Structure formats: C-alpha cells, structure tokens
C-alpha cells in the first residue's frame, strides 16, 4: 500500500509542541484572567488536539469522508453542550407576563 510516511522529524516536532503547550496551559492557569481562563484552557487544548489528529493520526492524508466524520463528531458534541446550556443558562431569566 502506498500510504504517506511521515518523517520522524515531524513527529518529534509535534511532540515538542505538545509538551510546551502543556507547560503553557499550566502556567496560564496560574494567572487570574477571570472568565478568559477557561477560554485559554480550551483553546490550548483544542490546538493540542488538532496537532494530534492532524499529524499523529494522519488525518491530513485520509480521505475527505473521514475528515467529515471527525468534524461531525465534534459538531454533535457541540450540539449537546449548546442545547444543555440553552436550558440551564436561561432558567433564571424572568418571563414577564404582560397584561392583556
């Protein structure tokens, strides 16, 4: 089979990036950025995840269909999170009845 062989150097560079990003996550978490803390944490985690998927899991060299499936998975997770929060975050909003 003629599958693309990734160079060792690429793998090592990605490994290095992941290690550094782990340290960054940790250090940034020690700073008080208010509600940006969670944004930073998730953003860095997403970058790490993208590196793992793209390079370690060869997602760049798989066919378009598989890429679509991976995206679909995250999209569905987003649906779950968004619609859960849709209920919980709006429960405290007052429903003001209007007199007729």
């Amino acid at each position, binding site marked *: *089979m003629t*599958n693309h*062989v*990734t160079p*060792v150097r690429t*793998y*090592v560079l*990605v*490994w290095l990036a*992941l*290690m550094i990003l*782990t*340290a960054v*996550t*940790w250090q940034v*978490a*020690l*700073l*008080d*950025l208010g509600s940006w*803390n969670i944004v930073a*944490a*998730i953003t*860095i*985690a997403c970058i*790490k*995840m993208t590196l*793992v*998927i793209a*390079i*370690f*899991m060869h997602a760049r060299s*798989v*066919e378009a*269909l*598989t890429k679509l*499936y*991976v995206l*679909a*998975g*995250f999209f*569905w*997770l987003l649906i*779950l*999170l968004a619609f*859960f*929060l849709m209920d*919980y*975050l709006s429960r405290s909003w007052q429903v003001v009845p209007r007199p007729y």
Partner: protein
Amino acid sequence: MADTIAVEHEHTPNLQHHFDNMEQQFSSATLGMWTFLLTEIMFFGGMFGAYTVYRSMYPAAFESTTHYMNVTLGAVNTMVLICSSLTMALAVRSAQVDNQKLLRLMLVLTLIFGFVFLGVKGYEYHEKWVEHLIPGPHFEYNNRAFAHEAQILFFLYFAMTGFHAIHMIVGAGLMTNLIIQSSRGRYSSQYYAPVEIVGLYWHFVDIVWIFLFPLLYLIGAHLKHT
C-alpha cells in the same frame, strides 16, 4: 473474474474473503476505527456535558477543588501520555518502513508509558481516599461552604478519569497483543492495519486526557490559597 480474486487471495494471506483487495480492507479498517472513535467522542461527551452544566451552576465550588488536586501529578501524566503518543506514532511508521526491531521497541515503550500513567493514577486515587475526598458518607471538605457541590466535581473526576483509565487498560491489552503479534513477524509495510488502528485508538485516549487535565485539575489554579 472469480479466478483472479482467488489468485489474489492466495498471494495475500492477510486478505479477508469478503474484501476484494488489501486497499479496500485497509481503508475499511481505518474508517471503522475513526467511526468508532466518533462514538467515543459522544460517550465521553455526555460526561463533558454534565461537567459543563454543573460548572456553570457552581463556579466557585468547582474552583475550590483545585486546591485538593495534585496538579503536578496531573501535568506529569499529561506529558507521559504525550510521550506515549510519540512512540505510538513512531511504531506505526516503523511498520510502514519494515523496521521490525524499531516497531517492537516503540510498542513496548508505548506500553511502558501507559503503565506509568496508570500507576500515577492509582497513586492519585489512593491519595484521594486517604484525604477523604471520595464523594459519599466519608467525604470531608475543609471548605465548608462548598462541601456539597464540590462532591459533584469529585464524582465527575472519578467518573471521567475512571472511564479514561478503563480505556487505557483496554489500550494496554491491545498494545500487548500487538507486541506479541509483531514478535511473530506478523506486520510489514504490506500489512500493518492493526498497528494503525490501535494507534488511532491510543491517540484518541490521549486527546481525552488533554481535555481532562485543564478541566479537572486547573479550574481554580489562579486562586491564592494559604
């Protein structure tokens, strides 16, 4: 046409009978594993959903738990898993270039990293037991204001890292099988699909931990504690 298929089956001993050729078999196997990982995203996703809801409801209680987490060990474990992903990726590459010795070495290293991770996890669980941080009747929490809701975070901690650990143990089993099979010379550049798909599984388990570390260990890291 039936004759050429029969001939192909004779020359390619790893070709299963319902497939026409190795390409079809390989791409089916990888699509199958990616699809399975899709289901795993939703499996863990349910717990991430519960976490998201409760963190939005009890932000201060969740932040108070970081003081009781062993952040150093969590970070160490994160790095251990990243190393294991490197060795796993290199194992797949070794199979692709027919380097049998390196393949075996990388698989063994991956397994060792996996055991280190599980060992550290076991130590952490023991720590939690000793410090009365297991949710339930024996839960003791110095931060009295959050003594109830903190249990939700700790329950999710054990549930999420517990299911993650179960997946690691399964991964270790798969890795062991790969080591045994590769020592029998089973894999080569012509047939390495099992190494590839176990690799995909292993990387996915790594990705789950990449999210678990900040979400469970670093929630309130910015708070100053005496």
